[in-house]
């Protein structure tokens, strides 16, 4: 019992890791079902009929089932994968080790945050099994669609309620986690571990925790207001004078835009919640496997602080064409473009870290290099979307889908892979198989470009997102070859992930037994705790026999 309901941060870290692993494969499976349906909308699929006897009666998927899968895919991936592994999984396991603390500041609270997260996931999945099925309003749940109840479509009844509940529970779990991270970093660092000697991973977890604290608090409030609109007859988000399915709606005075402001006030920082820990990690990995200090440690810290701070001032770029004042769009666009500057600083510093290095291409390093490549690719399309002038065409097209999947989805996932290969020896005492790992990396790297680059072209042609099929429009029918290619690339890339799954479970039992410090790294999770004498990235130090000086050794 005490091993399941453990208060030990290493056990909790692994619990989060495996919860997210399950969620990632569930979310990926949903995306495959969607991609298949998009190119064969009229094909009878026995599997669909078996899974959803009513929503896919006879094997043909209804549009509402497609939209439910889309909603659940987005929700699962954003909350239970991208928010969960980099912060709660790796953070829980390695933050105390890296700062020389015995455990997190509040171990019981830590245990509670994990079990609350699991409850949240189960609540979300339950939406598939209630009357009407899962909600279809997308992971952004814009009202009035999300606020009107079953009259707005199947899944908008009980399913949408469960969705809101699940998100509210997730917010509570994240708030508990955030407080724990902040207190641990501020209060439990070992002797000599000043803030400017923290590994960049710890800085990233610290800033992410602060972002979570404010972001999830606002999302929790917004979710409760939405729930009240649905069950208590309030009108926070529903304006007067609505006629839905020939019925007059008895609400008045609410504002649909209010939800968008609240949601994106959380939703944009959420992007950085997903990516900051990856940035911290790959900074470390590039340094370790280049055998060089991180280029511009201080600049990296300031850039992350700037991204965290500015991340709160740019939410309006999701709303350029929402009907808000066109003048605020200009203000938000200036702030949005400015956030590109610290992002560019980080990229330059990563390249600077490689410069003059002694580069070892381990699988972890390959994924870190892949991260930089993807970050540049997705960052540039962000430069386009951050401008209201250009968003006039691209908003809600596949260009946006391509952009955020590359930068928020795949780059963050590359961070997770890099971290898994880097820390696996510590977590499981064995090494992941490197040959299998490299094969997995190469195929995945090519695969994700094949999936998400064509989506940019679909965006050029104006193909809207969130369409269950493209039969109604002449111009979209002509784009089907791109969709066909994308679907095949998605199946290929998903199949490649089985290599990773196999490697993970096989290496846990059969992998080569790991040395205590297999990468010759300097940080405390590898060397064991002790008094800290200097910064975390002393590699290639001249005049030393070893090419690295652990933080616990005097320089």
């Amino acid at each position, binding site marked *: 019992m005490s091993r399941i309901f453990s208060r030990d941060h290493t056990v909790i870290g692994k619990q989060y890791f495996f919860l997210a692993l399950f969620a990632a494969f569930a979310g990926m499976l949903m995306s495959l079902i969607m991609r298949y349906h998009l190119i064969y909308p009229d094909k009878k699929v026995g599997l669909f009929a078996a899974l959803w006897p009513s929503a896919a009666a006879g094997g043909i998927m209804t549009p509402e089932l497609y939209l439910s899968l889309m909603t659940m895919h987005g929700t699962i991936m954003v909350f239970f994968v991208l928010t969960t592994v980099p912060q709660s999984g790796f953070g829980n396991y390695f933050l105390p080790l890296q700062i020389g603390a015995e455990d997190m500041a509040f171990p019981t609270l830590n245990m509670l945050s994990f079990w609350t997260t699991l409850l949240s996931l189960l609540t979300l999945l339950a939406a598939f099994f209630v009357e009407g099925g899962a909600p279809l309003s997308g992971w952004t749940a814009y009202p009035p669609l999300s606020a009107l109840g079953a009259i707005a479509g199947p899944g908008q009844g009980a399913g949408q309620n469960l969705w809101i509940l699940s998100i509210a529970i997730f917010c509570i779990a994240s708030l508990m986690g955030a407080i724990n991270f902040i207190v641990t970093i501020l209060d439990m660092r070992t002797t000599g571990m000043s803030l400017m000697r923290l590994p960049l991973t710890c800085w990233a977890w610290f800033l992410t925790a602060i972002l979570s604290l404010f972001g999830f608090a606002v999302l929790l409030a917004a979710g409760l207001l939405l729930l009240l609109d649905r069950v208590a007859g309030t009108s926070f988000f529903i304006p007067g004078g609505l006629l839905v399915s020939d019925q007059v709606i008895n609400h008045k005075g609410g504002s649909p835009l209010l939800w968008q402001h609240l949601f994106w006030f959380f939703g944009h920082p959420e992007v950085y919640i997903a990516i900051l820990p990856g940035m911290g990690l790959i900074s470390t990995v590039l340094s370790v496997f280049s055998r060089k200090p991180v280029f511009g440690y201080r600049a990296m810290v300031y850039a992350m602080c700037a991204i965290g701070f500015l991340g709160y001032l740019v939410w309006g770029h999701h709303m350029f064409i929402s009907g808000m004042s066109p003048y605020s769009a200009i203000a938000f666009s200036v702030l949005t473009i400015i956030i590109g500057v610290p992002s560019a600083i980080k990229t330059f510093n990563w390249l600077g870290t490689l410069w003059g290095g002694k580069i070892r291409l381990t699988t972890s390093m390959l994924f870190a290099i892949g991260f930089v490549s993807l970050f540049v690719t997705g960052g540039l399309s962000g430069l386009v979307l951050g401008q209201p002038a250009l968003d006039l065409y691209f908003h809600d097209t596949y260009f946006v889908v391509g952009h955020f999947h590359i930068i928020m989805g795949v780059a963050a996932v590359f961070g997770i892979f890099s971290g898994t290969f880097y820390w696996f020896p510590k977590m499981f005492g064995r090494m992941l198989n490197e040959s299998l790992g490299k094969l997995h990396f190469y195929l995945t790297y090519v695969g994700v470009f094949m999936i998400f680059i064509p989506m940019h072209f679909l965006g050029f042609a104006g193909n*809207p997102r969130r369409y269950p099929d493209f039969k109604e429009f002449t111009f979209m029918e002509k784009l089907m070859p791109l969709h066909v290619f994308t679907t095949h690339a998605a199946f290929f890339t998903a199949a490649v992930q089985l290599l990773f799954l196999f490697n993970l479970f096989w290496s846990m039992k059969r992998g080569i037994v790991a040395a205590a410090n297999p990468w010759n790294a300097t940080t405390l999770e590898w060397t064991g705790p002790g008094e800290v004498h200097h910064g975390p990235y002393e590699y290639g130090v001249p005049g030393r026999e070893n090419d690295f000086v652990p933080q616990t050794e005097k320089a």
Partner: protein
Amino acid sequence: MPIAILVWLVTAAVTYFFAAQYWWFPPPINQHGLAYDEHFHRMLVVSGVIFILAQVALGWLVVRFRDDGKRSTYSHGSNKLELLWTSATAVLFIGLLMLGQHVWADVHLAKAAPNALRIEVLAKQFAWSFRYAGPDGKFARTDMKLMNDASGNPFGIDAKDPASRDDKTAGALRVPVGVPIELILRSRDVIHNFFVRELRIKQDVVPGMEIPLLFQADKAGEYEIPCSELCGLGHHQMRSRLIVMERADFDRWVRESE
């Protein structure tokens, strides 16, 4: 080594397909569209150059500095370089943004021309309706209780209002060529989105709000209007057409009785 080659190959392939423009925007049909395309082209060239430089550099660094037994260069960075690339990117990014602001301003900060033709747009799950004031230039009174799609009155026009006699309701958006248009966008239920690719304009249609949208179409033809904000299970079927007509044809159409 394979990683560098792979990064370069992917870069070459991506660059090729962006430059070849096999899948591209439809040609614009107005001045705004031309200005849009010009600014987008500028962004594409600049981002293309950054994309190629960054990816080529990434691959090159991995090849050049691979482990060959020598020690690495011990360096914690350079403040001079940090300052250089921080200011360079800031100037470049802000500059690009400023160069495009007029494209936004022309659509959203301009006032409607005095001779602009006003057309009401009503979106609902899952259809579009358009209302013309007719020769008297007045939109008749509407009442929610009178809204009835089956009898062809989605706007709820009050027949007792004399201004209603020449109001015209249609399922497609017909406009005369070369005339400034002011759309008044309204929704009856959830959020929808008005999008015409050839106009390079997209605007959410939000219940509880009346959102004006200015445009002009300079080329006759038919263009599709796909709803571009998720509005429910029929979202993908919410289609209408923009029909740009010669002035004489348009006037004839307006005079025709329903």
